[in-house]
């Protein structure tokens, strides 16, 4: 079975500052990794995904994440955040054998202040 731990429940940051949202996963098999964003009263939208290949993955809205197999981490980063990035961010993992079944972390609330 897989599990995902998002190490910070809330991350406050000032506009134009860099941010890192941390995610660690646990799995005994190979996995795919995802980051989703949820704006208030909406469903989740895909930010980026890691399937294979380069460990540095670029996504939408200037976000990127790095897959580190030895540390079982998939941290999300952005060099300069905007007010509009204020949202909840979810890290998720799926077993490559199990047809898209995603296990989500508890979420990190990113709050960007002017």
């Amino acid at each position, binding site marked *: 079975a897989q599990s995902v731990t998002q190490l910070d429940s809330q991350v406050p940051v000032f506009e134009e500052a860099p941010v890192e949202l941390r995610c660690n996963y646990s799995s005994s098999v190979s996995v*795919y990794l*995802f980051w989703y964003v949820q704006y208030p*009263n*909406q*469903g*989740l*939208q*895909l930010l980026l*995904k890691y*399937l294979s290949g380069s460990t540095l993955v670029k996504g939408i809205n200037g976000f990127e994440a790095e897959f580190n197999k030895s540390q079982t981490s998939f941290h999300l980063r952005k060099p300069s955040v905007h007010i509009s990035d204020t949202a909840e961010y*979810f890290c998720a993992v*799926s*077993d*490559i*054998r*199990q*047809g*898209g*079944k*995603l*296990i*989500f*972390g*508890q*979420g990190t609330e990113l709050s960007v202040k002017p």
Partner: protein
Amino acid sequence: DAGVIQSPRHEVTEMGQEVTLRCKPISGHDYLFWYRQTMMQGLELLVYFNNKAVMDDSGMPKDRFSAKMPNASFSTLKIQPSEPRDSAVYFCASSNRQGQAPLHFGNGTRLTVT
């Protein structure tokens, strides 16, 4: 494409009543997922389908919840009888490829059981 469509957006009901949530996946997507989101538990997978067949319902309380997918373009999640602890946002999501494809989420149904 209209995306994943869920109805109703909000549902308020009294304890003991039957509740039916509905979902129309994106056309051509053969995986469909039902998730429940609460503050305490985060996003929990209740059940998922592949080609209308239940693949995993281990997260769904069997005594009161039932999920069906009578055709490729429609799914229901029924709760009978409903209880206050069922209050949550229920999301439907669909995808079109095993494992690698991202999930496309609907905007959710906010259920309140009084």
